């Protein structure tokens, strides 16, 4: 029987994948053709969703984007046997967008039914765990350290070193906490892993638990991801039933239980200590460090807090070896980064590449330039606390240290493009506004400075005491950079000052009829 794949990823659903799937089933019945419908994850070519694939002798053939109205003509064109049709894109694996990638963490994403454990096992699933079960905790930690993996949640701290601290703590209870709060605009790789290959995250957390001696794991999932919640819970139940979670994992003496906890819409709860407070049932106020969460984390116990992508990368490291993973990348940025193309780009989607590709390659070779057809003027990398980069910086390679050199961050790997209609003073104002809305309130520069900052930008664009107010934004930013407990207040100056420094022309007084004559541009 021909297998027909229609993604169940929520971005594909947001473009009508359910309707497409339903129409295909109804049309097949009407024509008396038998098909097997599989709801797979997304391949990550979101400008082409809903993407329908069919199995043929030569491999899977893609048709995209398929709306319900296209379905009868697809049947007429014998798409079940890979027939010619204007939407026929040829073999999926041969699509340049996919061929040019190095998918390690995302190796399985889009291929199979996300909640089928059999599919997972058939595509190298749980091989990493099998190896880990033959190793000591210290050996597992060493493999992760040697792989060069650094935290993909933003701070890029070496994962192995964090694990080693937890391993070295004596405690009756330790925890593995997965940070699935993914609050950064322009990012969705965590969501894709959880919806499209949830077992890889479960496997990664299980390996982490075995490595450091933790028996309980929590996934702190943002409340905006109801589909991920459903998929994770289904996958956790299946893993438990098959002996991959719970007591005596795969017949060993290891125990690891896993539970999903829903966040409640506070961006700051993505910060690891705020997250722990939230998991404990409190307001998400950021904690002072030290103590490090690795030493005194959840309920005061040693805790590994890692991003979804960091944890989901562990299985392939344990399967193929530390050297295999470390062979990808440049400088101190080893391995691959799942990059998320977003905003005003023709081709948005998930691109996993070894570190080192330039922003320009991503924006133009993968992204195809702007969606509007206008020039790309500014790009924000690394979420709402990331700097805005002008065209002169598009040749920067994606590498943690190279980005630090230009006062920018890679963060969680989100790239948001803006065309030349963007108003950078407005974006700077928005950065302050966002900080004010999301501040946990503990530090004055963050809580008050951000509100003040938004007001000052309003004055700047209306021309009130222009030079003085520009200086005020710089001073405020300085105070926030130096006087904030966490990166929400501490990094809001990145988008603000990069906008001001690279796009100064947008901060000239405008003619609102209020303009101060003395400083008229």
């Amino acid at each position, binding site marked *: 029987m021909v297998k027909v794949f229609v993604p169940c990823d*929520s*971005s594909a*659903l*947001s*473009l009508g994948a359910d309707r497409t799937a339903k129409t295909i089933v109804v049309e097949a019945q009407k024509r008396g053709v038998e098909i097997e419908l599989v709801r797979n994850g997304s391949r990550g070519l*979101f*400008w082409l*969703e809903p993407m329908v694939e069919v199995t043929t002798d030569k491999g899977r053939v893609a048709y995209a984007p398929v709306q319900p109205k296209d379905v009868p003509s697809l049947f007429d064109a014998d798409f079940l046997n890979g027939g010619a049709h204007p939407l026929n894109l040829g073999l999926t694996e041969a699509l340049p967008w996919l061929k040019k990638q190095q998918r390690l963490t995302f190796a399985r994403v889009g291929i199979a039914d996300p909640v089928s454990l059999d599919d997972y096992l058939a595509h190298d699933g749980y091989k990493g765990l099998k190896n880990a079960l033959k190793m000591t905790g210290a050996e597992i930690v060493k493999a992760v350290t040697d792989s060069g993996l650094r935290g993909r949640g933003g701070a890029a701290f070496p994962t192995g070193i964090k694990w080693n601290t937890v391993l070295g703590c004596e405690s009756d209870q330790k925890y593995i906490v997965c940070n699935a709060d*993914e*609050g*950064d*605009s*322009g*990012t*969705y790789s*965590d*969501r894709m892993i959880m919806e499209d290959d949830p077992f890889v995250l479960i496997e990664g957390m299980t390996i982490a638990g075995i490595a450091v001696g933790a028996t309980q794991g929590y996934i702190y999932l*943002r*409340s*905006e*991801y*109801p*589909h991920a919640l459903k998929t994770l819970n289904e996958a956790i139940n299946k893993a438990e039933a098959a002996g991959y979670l719970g007591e005596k994992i795969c017949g060993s003496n290891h125990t690891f239980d896993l539970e999903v*906890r*829903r*966040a*409640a*819409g*506070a*961006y700051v709860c993505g910060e690891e200590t705020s997250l722990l407070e*939230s*998991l*404990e*049932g*409190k*307001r*998400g106020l950021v904690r002072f460090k030290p103590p490090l969460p690795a030493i005194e984390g959840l*309920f005061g116990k040693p805790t590994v807090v890692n991003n979804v992508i960091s944890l989901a990368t562990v299985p392939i490291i344990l399967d193929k070896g530390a050297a295999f993973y470390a062979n990808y990348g440049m400088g101190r940025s080893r391995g691959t980064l799942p990059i*998320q*193309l*977003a*905003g*005003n780009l023709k081709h*948005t*989607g*998930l691109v996993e590449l070894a570190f080192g590709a330039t922003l320009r390659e991503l924006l133009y070779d993968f992204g195809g330039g702007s*969606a509007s057809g206008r020039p790309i003027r500014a790009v*924000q990398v690394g979420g*709402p606390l990331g700097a805005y980069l002008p065209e002169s910086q598009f040749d920067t390679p994606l590498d943690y240290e190279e980005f630090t050199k230009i006062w920018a961050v890679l963060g969680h790997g*989100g790239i*948001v*493009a*803006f*065309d030349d209609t*963007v108003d950078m003073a407005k*974006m700077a104002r*928005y950065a302050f506004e*966002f900080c004010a*809305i*999301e501040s946990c309130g503990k530090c004055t520069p963050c809580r008050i400075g951000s509100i003040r900052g938004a007001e000052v930008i309003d004055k700047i664009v209306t021309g009130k005491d222009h030079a003085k107010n520009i200086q005020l934004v710089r001073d405020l930013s300085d105070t926030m950079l130096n006087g904030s407990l966490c990166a929400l207040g501490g990094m809001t100056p990145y988008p603000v000052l990069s906008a001001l420094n690279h796009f100064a022309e947008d901060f000239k007084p405008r003619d609102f009829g209020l303009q101060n004559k003395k400083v008229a541009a």
Partner: protein
Amino acid sequence: MTTALSTEELTKIEAHITAHKHMPGALLPLLHAIQDDIGWISEEAYLPISKALALSVAEVHGVVTFYHHFRRHPAGRHVLQVCRAESCQAMGAEKLEAHVKSTLGVDYHQTTKDGAITLEPVYCLGNCACSPAVMMDDEVYGRMDNQKMAELISEARGA
């Protein structure tokens, strides 16, 4: 305006408290369960919650108000969240936002007169590859324009 809970709702809250009170870090899961069931968190729930979890009423109140997700007033039959974050802004979210507000005749955190839709801002739905994005209840919609928005709204009003 305060809305009193019905006896049935109070019984439901008691049941959620009983089901959750022994969990480590029970408060957030409990508040979620109550809001999923009843639609909002009434102050009437604070006292029984605080007793069961050995917290003060002020602490419960502090948690409910800290998180944007928890609502302290009943919502409309549907909740429409419009994404205001950067990727969606790059694709015209601001215009969409203005259009939605004028179509519904409400601002953020308000409910339409017919009680059909409560409008909320949201900061990223993870659908940035299909900006601008919105969420109606638990379903996300991408590449929204005024036309698609109108269909979504009229569907919600009908249901």
